[in-house]
């Protein structure tokens, strides 16, 4: 166990060091939510005002969902990184050492989560001038949930990356599944006005629960039922994702 933690830390620090050296990826990951914040939120603002709401209310509704979206999209494409590393021979070079195989995966996932935290924190800070309000305790829980989503999506992405070993195959898979997941989670527009069948799909989408819980947290309702339900659902899925990703990893990376 000590060796595993040490190896994970070694891989984690290396990956983080390389990430810092290529800040372009952090920026690219930030750009998308930033676009949503600057180009989509005003649209929502207008709708909200027609319905008699305020600008602050619009952001209070939209930003929590956007954080869930960022947690998904920031990590779903992690698999591309592992394909590049496989191609460069880096993974193989590390595999010939006695390093723990799973540490090679966990160190990378850890890096993804830290990057994600930086992006999400920036988004929250940037949204405050627009009227977003949040308090410390719920925000901490929010970041716990973001970590669970990140671990889940990164593990699935790594698993698929190792299975396909090709960017050309991974990209369409990711695009096919990520957008329906996003749309049916009620992140961009509320599902309350959706037809019944669409709401039914939303109900089985774990990210719907995440988005709902996230909104409750930003209302300061950290003890809302949906918060604990979402944490339980995402926690369970994250464990499954990690187990699958790790198995895929040790299978192809003996």
């Amino acid at each position, binding site marked *: 166990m000590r060796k595993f933690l040490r*190896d994970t830390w*070694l891989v984690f620090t290396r990956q983080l060091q390389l990430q810092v050296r290529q800040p372009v990826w952090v920026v690219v990951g930030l750009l998308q939510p930033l676009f949503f914040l600057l180009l989509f939120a005003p649209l929502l603002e207008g709708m909200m005002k027609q319905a008699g709401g305020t600008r602050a209310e619009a952001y209070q509704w939209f930003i929590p969902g956007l954080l869930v979206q960022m947690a998904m999209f920031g990590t779903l494409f992690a698999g591309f990184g592992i394909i590049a590393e496989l191609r*460069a*021979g*880096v993974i*193989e070079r590390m595999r*010939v*050492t006695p390093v723990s195989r799973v540490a090679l995966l966990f160190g990378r996932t850890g890096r993804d989560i830290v990057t994600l935290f930086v992006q999400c924190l920036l988004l929250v800070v940037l949204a405050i001038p627009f009227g977003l309000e949040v308090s410390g305790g719920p925000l901490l829980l929010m970041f716990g949930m973001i970590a669970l989503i990140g671990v889940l999506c990164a593990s699935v992405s790594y698993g698929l990356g190792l299975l396909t070993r090709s960017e050309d195959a991974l990209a369409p898979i990711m695009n096919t599944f990520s957008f329906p997941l996003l749309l049916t989670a009620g992140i961009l527009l509320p599902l309350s006005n959706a037809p019944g069948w669409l709401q039914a799909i939303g109900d089985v989408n774990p990210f719907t629960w995440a988005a709902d819980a996230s909104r409750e947290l930003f209302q300061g309702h950290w003890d809302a039922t949906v918060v604990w339900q979402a944490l339980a659902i995402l926690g369970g899925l994250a464990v499954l994702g990690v187990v699958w990703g790790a198995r895929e990893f040790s299978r192809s990376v*003996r």
Partner: protein
Amino acid sequence: MMIETRGLRKSFRGRGKTGTVDAVRGVDLSVGEGEIFGFLGPNGAGKTTTLRMLATLLQPDGGEAMVAGADLRTQPGEVRKRIGYVSQGGGVWDDSTAREELELQARLYGMTKAEARSRAEAVIRAFQLESFADRRARTYSGGQRRRVDIALGCVHRPRLVFLDEPTTGLDPQSRAHMWDEVRRLREMGMTVFITTHYLDEADALCDRLAIMDHGRIVAEGTPAQLKREIAGDVVTLGLNGAGTTARKLLEGEPYVRGIESVENTLRLYVEVGAAAIPQILRRLDDQGIALHSVELHRPSLDDVFLAKTGRSLRDEPAATKGGNR
């Protein structure tokens, strides 16, 4: 013995309906301590697959192997500690520097931070990487990159190091440097197991070698032994298209011990070349077959390869890499 294998086997599932591909079909090898052992064969012969099995990167389907004194099947962790492995493509990340990679690799082998730092420094000096060790790898030349790859494989002072085609893609000068490097590894006390498809390389560098073809070892010995197996001389005839007729004509001659056609040339294995040439010329002349060149030489490793496999290694297109994983 540094490596001892018996009946090592590996097959891969083919894509679609092609069934399975037997990449390695029962390899018996023994490599002594301190040897530079060459593993020679055309692309797709199973060299890399064998190497990857010995380096614990692939699980064999069958057979046994002791590598650096540990059992490959039951103690892969021990094997990993004792060997170094340098893959064909290397494994330096473009945004890292050689020093960072070396320190990390040393730490992955279990060294403390301080140990790793001093080991990296020692290796940088030993492989003369000082001038670029702190630059990012994307700025390295092909030869520099290769030296870093090898340094990475040796950072933990392994007793045995595997080099998979270390000179492929290098210019002649870098190749010569690499040969010196390999010899130095042995001077440092390592056993070197090297694959190559260059015959001159195997001849110049290796103490002993094995020739692999279609997943099997077809010959094993010192370069001199192997060449001696093909006794006599080799006469190479350059023909303009009449290869088949000439071959039929000469096949029956008493002084011809073997015959192989390679594209527009015919290679004859004869006991005494000087005596055979006039007879060959007379025979061909009688039938009106025109020659444009005659060459007489001592057998080379290429002749050994040709005799063992029926193909010439030189004619292998170097670009076709098999589906080795």
